[in-house]
């Protein structure tokens, strides 16, 4: 298993007449943490969604974990995960049930202790059996973090992971990023919170209007 975690050449994505991504060339190595910066609407979310195989590229080549996104989408989805800004929670279900659902959709099952443990790790143990309808935004974010962290991943895509979180929550995310990196996974993190994003980044990529504007090491 060698080769970069992500390699794109000329990645372009259009929505009707709006060009969200214009010719992105990006390479992220395994075990690397890459921060994706840029104001709102510059294409960060679109890029992450293409890498997660949610969106098809309009043009260009995109290889994730050595697989062409247009062809091997399924194998990518088994080893990569996307943390969405708003989270993916079903209001009527409890936190624990949401995680159980996520685990089953990902192809495995999670014993009750596994669910409890995952929730405890993000500090949601005491609200595990309450419907997520009652969760605050910060709690939903933590639940989303737990959802992403359920399985072993080779690529982690984080879309605005820090928003709505208090200090403790931000620390949780950073801890998770460190763990993923230590396990050899690549992490691409998009955020408009520049300082938080930069702190752990090995590289920084700046997007502006769908194109890569600048690249560099951290700090």
């Amino acid at each position: 298993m060698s080769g970069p975690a992500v390699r794109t050449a000329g990645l372009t994505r259009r929505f009707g007449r709006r060009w969200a991504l214009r010719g992105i060339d990006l390479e992220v190595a395994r075990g690397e943490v890459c921060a994706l910066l840029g104001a709102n609407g510059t294409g960060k979310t679109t890029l992450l969604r293409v890498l997660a195989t949610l969106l098809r590229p309009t043009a260009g080549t995109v290889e994730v974990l050595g697989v062409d996104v247009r062809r091997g989408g399924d194998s990518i989805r088994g080893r990569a995960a996307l943390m969405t800004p708003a989270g993916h929670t079903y209001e009527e279900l409890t936190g624990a049930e949401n995680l159980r659902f996520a685990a089953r959709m990902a192809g495995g099952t999670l014993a009750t202790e596994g669910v409890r443990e995952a929730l405890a790790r993000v500090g949601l143990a005491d609200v595990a059996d309450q419907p997520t309808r009652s969760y605050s935004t910060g709690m939903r974010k933590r639940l989303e973090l737990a959802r992403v962290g359920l399985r072993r991943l080779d690529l982690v895509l984080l879309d605005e992971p820090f928003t709505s979180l208090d200090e403790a929550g931000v620390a949780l995310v950073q801890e998770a990023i460190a763990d993923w990196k230590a396990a050899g996974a690549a992490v691409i993190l998009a955020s408009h919170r520049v300082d938080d994003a930069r702190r752990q980044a090995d590289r920084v990529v700046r997007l502006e209007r769908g194109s890569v504007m600048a690249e560099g090491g951290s700090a």
Partner: protein
Amino acid sequence: MRRAGAILWKDLLTELRTRQGFSAMLSFAALVLFLFSFAIGPETELLARLAGGLLWVAIVFTGTLALGRAFQSEELAGGVRLLRLYPGDPRAIYLGKLAANLVLLAALEAVLFPATEILFQADLGSHALPLAAVAVLGTGGFSIVGTFFSALTVHLRARELLLPLLLFPALVPIVLGAVGATDAVLAGDALGRAGGWIRLLTAYDVILFVVCVWIFPIVLEE
């Protein structure tokens, strides 16, 4: 598919928790049946003859309501497309939703059939088995096409208008078949005419199921 089962479980759990969906369906169906009773008049013989047709009209109206909500819970959670983030065949989503819709409609029909028997003096009980077969085939066909178009229209603005519009042509064989078979069974002709309709419904269900399952991933693509 286990993932389809997961979706089924999630949807049923949600429905159990709120219960408003089902009770809304039930009240609506009851309303339809009552209104028809009033509109047609108290002639018991007429009502009994029309029972099959009225029953299925109530089922279709109510079913369309249920379909409209089928993917709404997904929209509230962030969009049905997010389910595609998980590995595995996206068709599991269709199958799970289809199963959930079938369970819901089955629960509805468990109430509607006796209600029709009472309101319209139709003797449904003594033909329970063949009627059950017709119910399965008719409801199945409805759900197969309905779930499909529901997934398609959930992303469109005029969803409430478009779903019935797209659904209507697909429903013609189902309604004709289900009502035809129901009437034939009630008239005591279980194997003759009813048999013909049942064959038609079965063929329709099978063909539509295969096509819908096959094509479904394209509906979710982006």
